[in-house]
């Protein structure tokens, strides 16, 4: 059998090469894209570790445990590879909340608080801190100088890397072991063996040291890539999604994504199916060219098992040779491309860290510091096993299809078409055109199969482009809406009191600086929306209502009233007109016009969003009204934020809703956007700065976003801004310029990856189209031979073939348009809105891409038919006619 298989492979060289090429291409695709996604996830993990810290959990412990746990410790069921120790020795809440902490080297490494300059403190009055903290505390910039904190002078001995999350409420000052504060709180930062389940190791660790589980905080942004929590069973997840009221399809997808990395595993599986489809298609075409020979073998007494064995051996031989080669090529090419992208980030880290002390935050710039290409061995092995077994089935299916056809049937040509009794020649007609259409449409099942297979690549390409375009929009909108990253500089107050503000004069100074542009000063107050009749999502505020901080400070967020209505706490923003204009991209309903807002005293509401990307605003729409109460500032205390004091302390106004938006732009920090909810979408209302003044008497600002002018030196601008806010109590400046650059590069990289994937899929699809079209022509070579014998000229023959190619191309385009617009786009919209939770799915596939794909489809189909036609035209007519 092996000999026969080998003979066939050698005799049908072209077909063998086509199958081999399809195996190499699909293996490249499968392994390359899997590795790409795997690498991307690995880099996301590395990125998260940079941003959120390279640790999995931290736990507050007693002093004894704190001392006894060590890095590298192996216990029953866990391996603690790294253990960082951090002890808070003192806290000062004067102007800023400042923590004096003593840490070990492991903690500094895990939290990315490396020493950039100088030395670590050794004496009691020595401190080290990052550039952000030092500059905002008014440090001169020279090591050895003293700094006054909490009425005491300290000598600054070293500068550390800043926290990524530099705008957090706390400032950390590193002290030596000899520093004695007023207390001691000890924390262990835990980094377990990532090759094993983290949640199991944590359980074992907590058991061993008898640490209660509620003392543990999970570094979710890191552990979600590593299985930080025990996954639910797949069956239970699907059952819950289908049977429970709270569950739905989105729940299933999101749960599978979080527990089983659906994006990666699902993609690997889909790629396996796609690979199988392409190889099967090419192979079945190849086998169809020698069906008669297998028929003859059968008549000679060769059993089906032996024929099947020959086919399996043929496929497996090529697969064993082609798969590793394809993996090598796919990974090789993509790793080169991947490494090339790493140049985008080249030198970024070093360049920034060498800067002298300024307000510029140094860690912010780091992000993806190293772009590594990782091989996805899991996917390659799975793909190998899956395709090996599947190809065996493919061979058996081909044998099965052979069984259905007798040799006589094979020799009498294609008789499976629908027989219409219409005589075309009774009317003036182009019979060549009739023949073309008959060839194409006589067998509907076949034509649908061909058209679908022709459309696969185009559809995938369009979907990927659609996704990439929307990803771009989403990322741009996210940058805008995530506070700070829309603008390079953000001046805010390290305070959560409405009493602290940035005076109008300071804002004007920043606006009038030659080095700044797009300066948006935002007013803020805290309010309560009353008389909300219905909460469409009953449990939406449950977590916030039970959050200790929210309860103690605001008395809860959403409070039911005796009359059945609700009162809900709200952030209330006053935007500048230009900033309001930028909200247009986030509008869900209604329209935004600053003048209309002012004249009609209207308001913009930020909709609530559930975990699946659905928006709502208590059933209210533009034109409806809401009632808003805000505290008066005359005798303001934080107690007023509970909205339980006398009515004389509040101003109540009714506003008409002008628009409902999905996100606010400039966001507060320290009120609702606090702690766990720092990055969450919290209830918000937006009006103009003028309205804030007229309605509530608010004149000063709470935060200012600014961008550097085109040719301005960013460091100079940041120093100028610092000067402008020098006299504003609690005001701090965060410089996001490097972070924005990193994010934009990261986005660009993501887009290139998406496009690469789309192009690879499209190339494979083109190969498949060429092969299918070639087959559709060659399978009719006898008929074309007859037509040529009947006297069609070469030009007429080429026209006929051209007509076939164009018709297939155009029909494939129609199928692509229909499938893409009616099915795929809707599925993608659902996926992007509810699973990926993109902000506004506005972008379509650019017309030039759409028309380019269509033109390319036709061009490829035409080229794919003209080449075999050219060969046919050179063949001897008689040999073609006698060719069965």
């Amino acid at each position, binding site marked *: 059998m092996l000999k026969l298989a080998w003979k066939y492979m050698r005799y049908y060289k072209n077909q063998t090469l086509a199958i081999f090429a399809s195996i190499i291409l699909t293996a490249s695709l499968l392994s390359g894209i899997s590795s790409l996604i795997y690498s991307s996830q690995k880099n996301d993990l590395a990125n998260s570790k940079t941003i959120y810290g390279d640790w999995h959990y931290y736990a507050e412990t007693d002093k004894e445990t704190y001392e006894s746990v060590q890095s590298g410790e192996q216990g029953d069921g866990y391996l603690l590879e790294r253990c960082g120790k951090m002890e808070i020795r003192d806290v000062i809440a004067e102007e800023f909340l400042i923590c004096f902490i003593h840490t070990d080297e492991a903690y500094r490494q895990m939290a990315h608080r490396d020493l950039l300059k100088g030395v670590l403190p050794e004496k009691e009055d020595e401190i080290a801190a990052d550039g952000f903290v030092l500059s905002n505390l008014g440090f001169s910039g020279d090591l050895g100088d003293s700094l006054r904190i909490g009425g005491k002078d300290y000598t600054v001995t070293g500068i550390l890397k800043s926290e990524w999350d530099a705008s957090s409420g706390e400032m950390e000052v590193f002290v030596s072991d000899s520093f004695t504060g007023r207390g001691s709180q000890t924390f262990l930062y835990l980094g377990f063996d990532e090759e094993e389940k983290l949640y199991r190791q944590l359980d074992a660790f907590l058991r061993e040291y008898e640490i209660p589980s509620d003392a543990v905080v999970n570094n979710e942004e890191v552990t979600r890539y590593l299985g930080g929590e025990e996954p639910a069973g797949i069956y239970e997840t699907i059952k819950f999604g289908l049977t429970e009221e709270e569950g739905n399809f989105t729940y299933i997808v999101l749960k599978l994504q979080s527990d089983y990395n659906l994006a990666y595993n699902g993609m690997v599986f889909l790629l396996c199916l796609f690979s199988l489809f392409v190889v099967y298609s090419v192979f079945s075409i190849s086998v169809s060219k020698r069906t008669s020979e297998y028929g003859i073998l059968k008549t000679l007494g060769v059993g089906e098992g032996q024929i099947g064995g020959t086919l399996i051996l043929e496929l497996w031989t090529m697969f064993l040779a082609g798969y590793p080669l394809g993996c090598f090529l796919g990974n090789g090419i993509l790793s080169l491309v991947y490494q090339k992208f790493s140049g985008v980030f080249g030198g970024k880290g070093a360049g920034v860290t060498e800067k002298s002390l300024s307000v510029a935050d140094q860690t912010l710039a780091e992000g993806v510091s190293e772009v590594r290409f990782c091989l996805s061995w899991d996917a390659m092995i799975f793909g190998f096993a899956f395709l090996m077994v599947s190809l065996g089935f493919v061979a058996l299916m081909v044998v099965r299809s052979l069984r259905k056809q007798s040799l006589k049937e094979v020799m*009498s*040509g*294609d*008789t499976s*078409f629908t*027989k219409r*009794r219409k*005589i*075309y*020649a*009774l009317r*003036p*007609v*182009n*019979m*060549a055109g*009739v*023949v073309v259409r*008959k*060839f194409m449409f*006589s067998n509907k099942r076949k034509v649908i199969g061909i058209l679908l297979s022709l459309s696969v690549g185009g559809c995938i390409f369009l979907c990927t482009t659609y996704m990439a375009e929307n990803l771009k929009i989403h990322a741009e909108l996210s940058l805008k809406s995530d506070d700070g990253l829309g603008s390079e500089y953000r001046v805010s107050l390290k305070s959560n009191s409405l009493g602290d503000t940035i005076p109008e004069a300071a804002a004007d100074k920043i606006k009038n600086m030659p080095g700044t542009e797009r300066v948006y000063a935002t007013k803020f107050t805290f309010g309560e929306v009353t008389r909300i009749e219905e909460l469409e999502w009953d449990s939406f505020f449950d977590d916030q209502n039970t959050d200790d901080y929210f309860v103690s400070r605001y008395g809860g967020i959403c409070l039911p009233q005796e009359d059945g209505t609700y009162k809900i706490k709200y952030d209330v923003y006053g935007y500048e007109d230009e900033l309001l204009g930028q909200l247009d991209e986030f509008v869900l309903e209604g329209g935004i016009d600053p003048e209309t807002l002012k004249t009609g005293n209207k308001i913009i509401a930020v909709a609530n969003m559930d975990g699946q990307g659905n928006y709502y605003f208590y059933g209210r729409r533009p034109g409806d009204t809401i009632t808003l109460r805000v505290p008066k500032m005359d005798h303001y205390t934080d107690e007023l934020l509970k909205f339980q004091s006398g009515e004389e302390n509040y101003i109540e106004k009714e506003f008409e809703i002008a628009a409902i938006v999905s996100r606010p732009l400039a966001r507060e920090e320290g009120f609702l956007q606090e702690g766990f909810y720092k990055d969450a979408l919290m209830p918000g209302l937006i009006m103009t700065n003028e309205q804030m003044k007229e309605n509530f008497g608010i004149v000063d600002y709470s935060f200012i976003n600014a961008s550097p002018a085109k040719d301005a030196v960013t460091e100079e601008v940041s120093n100028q801004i610092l000067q402008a806010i020098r006299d504003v109590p609690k005001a701090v400046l965060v410089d996001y310029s490097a972070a924005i650059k990193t994010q934009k590069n990261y986005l660009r990289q993501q887009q290139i990856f998406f496009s690469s994937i789309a192009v690879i899929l499209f190339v494979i699809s083109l190969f498949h189209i060429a092969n299918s079209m070639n087959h559709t022509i060659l399978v009719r070579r*006898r*008929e074309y*031979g*007859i*037509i*040529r*014998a*009947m*006297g*069609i*000229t*070469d*030009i*007429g023959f080429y026209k006929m073939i051209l007509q076939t190619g164009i018709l297939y191309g155009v029909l494939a385009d129609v199928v692509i348009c229909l499938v893409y617009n009616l099915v795929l786009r809707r599925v993608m919209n659902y996926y992007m809105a509810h699973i990926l939770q993109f902000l506004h799915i506005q972008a379509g596939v650019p017309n030039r891409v759409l028309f380019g794909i269509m033109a390319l489809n036709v061009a490829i189909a035409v080229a794919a038919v003209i080449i075999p036609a050219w060969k046919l035209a050179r063949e*001897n*007519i*008689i040999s073609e*006619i*006698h060719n069965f």
Partner: protein
Amino acid sequence: MSILELRHIGKTYGEKENQVNALQDISLQVEEGEFAAIVGTSGSGKSTLLNLMGGLDNPTKGEIFIKNREIGSLSRKELTIFRRRNIGFVFQNYSLMPVLNVYDNVALPVTFDRGKHINRKYIEELLRELGIWEKRRKYPNELSGGQQQRVAIARALVNKPHLLLCDEPTGNLDSATTIEVMGLLKASCRKYQQTILMVTHNEAIAQTCDRVIHIEDGRIVTGKRRFPEKGGDEEC
């Protein structure tokens, strides 16, 4: 008047040691209205000769004149059009288009002449004459071998060619159908004043023709003239 003339035709396949001389120095004249049979054993070169006469293949040596035009001097396009208008073919395997019904199969060659009017009356007459008018909406695979060959003959005659070349037209037929088909060919030859050259390996069938040309090892070995007054080949 000679409608077909072959002058020292040779056809060689392959190269060097694999070279095979399929035809050697064939000279032949066929008169208008003649019904000639080319007889020979398998591999003798009779089909090759027929294909060369029909312009479906090119000779290695010599010249072929049809209606006094040397077909080797024609361009591919001219040859195709010349063949379409002057030569009809009937093949042993019928070579019908499986996706077209009987009527459309027959009409197909006419439509290749752009703008040429389809003489539907003539097609009907042909189909009636050949006894397949009732089958005009049927597809080839719904017909018997004899019926398919009638369709093939009708298709060959539809352009009213001067020369009809038949390659083993009865090779796939039983004896009764063979007699029928031969009768039809003869009748059409007379009715439409056509010259027919038929390749066969069946001596008995050949004997029913006006003239028999024997071919062995690529050479004409003998021939009998039934129409001496109209001319004939020099070797006979």
